[in-house]
């Protein structure tokens, strides 16, 4: 292999390690944000003892979970029981590989750094496929636990996620139509200098948000893990690090959804009215940092939205949940798709 290929591989590995580290950190501290923020919504403080403002809490929790006894129930199927959390967490992390976090940094010496691990030409399609794998983690986990509550929870969750995959994909499809490409960086570039896609595609945005909340099993669609009804749904029998995997997988999925939503609808790292041609060309690394910060702020906005609705709304019953997915969101997503296709065909020649 020649030098160039080796350097490419090395750079990719480096990016993977950095991204994994950052994502793991963000996932752990997303839990902290949620607990603090929910506390504030609920007239209380949330964790504030372990370290300043409770910032060491995620580390303490992680340590506790690692040190816990690994219990596998007698009725469980051991191999599947151990395999299931892997199916949950791997797709969540793999999804981050196609997201572009900042504009390309072209150095004076001509080196080209893209803030993305694998900007494949089937970007969003790849993401949809990979995130569908996460459902296996839930189904396997529930079934292999060998007990009724997890079984019920996993079946519910599977139906729920299947039901909401369709409007989610249709909403994303309309974005792809507008941008003309599956590649995420193209989608972001299509919003640079123009309106962010949230404006023409407001319907798709609404459908995407609601479907994403349902896909990630979050309130008000969190029946599969509803404490009050099924104890803990599909992860009832999981403890210690296996449970931590499910937990981390859920938050990683949330952050993934937030990042994807900012890329698709809010323009990702694009800062409106920013002089990319002049300032951007002159100071590439500064532009990249600004882009990264913009991306981060937009993603955090979505995270806040997630937490806000968790604090506010009661939970939908399972059949009502499915009804909304199939009879409300799907028609809206379809109508939206036809509208966008029509606009693209006739207006935006």
């Amino acid at each position, binding site marked *: 292999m020649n030098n160039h290929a080796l350097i490419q591989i090395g750079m990719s590995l480096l990016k993977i390690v950095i991204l994994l580290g950052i994502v793991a950190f963000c996932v752990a501290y997303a839990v902290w944000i949620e607990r603090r923020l929910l506390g504030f919504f609920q007239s209380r403080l949330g964790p504030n003892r372990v370290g300043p403002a409770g910032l060491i809490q995620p580390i303490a929790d992680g340590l506790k979970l690692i040190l816990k006894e690994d219990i596998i129930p007698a009725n469980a199927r051991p191999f599947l029981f151990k395999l299931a959390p892997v199916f949950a967490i791997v797709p969540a992390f793999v999804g981050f590989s196609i997201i572009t976090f900042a504009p390309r940094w072209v150095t004076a010496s001509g080196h080209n750094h893209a803030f993305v691990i694998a900007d494949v030409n089937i970007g969003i399609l790849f993401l949809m496929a990979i995130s569908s794998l996460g459902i296996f983690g839930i189904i396997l986990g529930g079934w292999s636990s060998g007990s009724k509550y997890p079984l019920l929870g996993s079946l519910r969750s599977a139906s729920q996620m299947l039901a909401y995959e369709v409007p989610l994909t249709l909403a994303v499809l309309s974005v792809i139509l507008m941008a003309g490409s599956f590649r995420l960086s193209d989608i972001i570039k299509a919003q640079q200098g123009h309106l962010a896609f949230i404006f023409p595609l407001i319907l798709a945005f609404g459908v995407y948000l609601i479907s994403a909340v349902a896909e990630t099993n979050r309130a008000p669609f969190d029946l599969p893990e509803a404490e009050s009804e099924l104890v803990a749904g599909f992860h009832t029998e999981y403890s210690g690090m296996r449970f931590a995997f499910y937990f981390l997988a859920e938050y990683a999925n949330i952050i993934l959804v937030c990042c994807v939503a900012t890329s698709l609808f809010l323009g990702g790292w694009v800062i409106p009215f920013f002089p990319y041609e002049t300032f951007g060309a002159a100071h590439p690394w500064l532009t990249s940092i600004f882009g990264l910060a913009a991306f981060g702020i937009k993603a955090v906005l979505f995270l806040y939205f997630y937490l806000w609705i968790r604090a506010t*709304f009661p939970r939908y019953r399972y*059949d009502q949940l499915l009804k909304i997915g199939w009879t409300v969101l799907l028609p809206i997503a379809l109508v939206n798709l036809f509208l966008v296709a029509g606009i693209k065909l006739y207006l935006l020649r």
Partner: protein
Amino acid sequence: MPNEALTPKVEAPLRKALESKEMELNMGPQHPATHGVFRAILSLDGEKVVGIEPVIGYLHRGIEKWAEFRTYQQAAPIFDRLDYVGAVINSHAYVQAVEKLLQVEIPKKAQYIRVVLDELQRIANHLLWLGTHALDLGAMTVLFYCLREREVIMDLFEAMLGQRLLPNAYPIGGVRFDFPRNWEKVCRDFLERFPRLVDDYEKLLSENRIWKQRTRGIGIVTPEEAIDLGLSGPTLRGSGVNFDVRKAMPYSSYEDFDFEVPLGTRGDVYDRYMCRVREMRQSTRIVSQALDGMPEGELKAKMSKIIKPKAGEAYACVEGTKGQLGFYIVSDGSKQPWRVHVRAPSFVNLQGLETMVMGELVADVVANIGSLDIVLGEVDR
């Protein structure tokens, strides 16, 4: 019955194999949403409930028997532990029964003080009910707001009675103390703030589409069924039956106060929810009126220190926080009661669970148990 013409002709053994059995789900004594150690064995056909067998007794402490070996005053504190959320009213029911046995008349001032404390207890109970009911259905924020309000009431109880939760509020014959210095002011502050806070909770829930979808049309009990089952309290009034002990058989000067009794129309979970929320507002009115019209007078009736009622029996009931709470006391002329029986509203209301839950989904069982507002201390005694 399956339509013969439409049923596919399947071989007998195959049909037997294709029939799905009912699944038995144990909503065990340890469950986040059963409001105590309550066990319900559900028979499910898929997600639909086709049978429910409530199993109680996990909190049985032999309270009624225990009371037989104590004097009347000694027995009083344990009845707080029945409905441990609405303890003050339990105390009231018991002392009322004993006072009926003794045939003593309670001074007017003591009656008004009892009304004030009772209605504050009712508000506190309904706040906890609302918080836990909303939590069961996923709205976790409401719980913390309700607990925050409850703290004020418990502070008031602590200042006046010395205890937050189980204060053993009333001695036989009246009340122990008058309001402490500044107590009325704090209480009135609370009463002034409270209606706006109830508005906040209603804003979060009453018109919320998700809440309505979870509670409207769920757990319907017709008025006839409700009366047949012997339901009482908001569970009964949610079905539209106008029976409130405070209006039907007034005690402790309730006839002096002007308040409404909220009624439901459909008898579903939503109506029971609205009844209790409106009751909170009405209780605020009653306390204000009682504080405004507080008469002067004695705190306790004149009676001997040793309570030795003549042989006989007495039944006294009050409008408890959960429904009609009655005490039936049989005296044999000695210092200790011969028999104390508690007509616990939660115990009777729990029998309505089957009617409410049949044919509904598992998630609705939780909503229904929440709307019954049971406390296992009362159910099991």
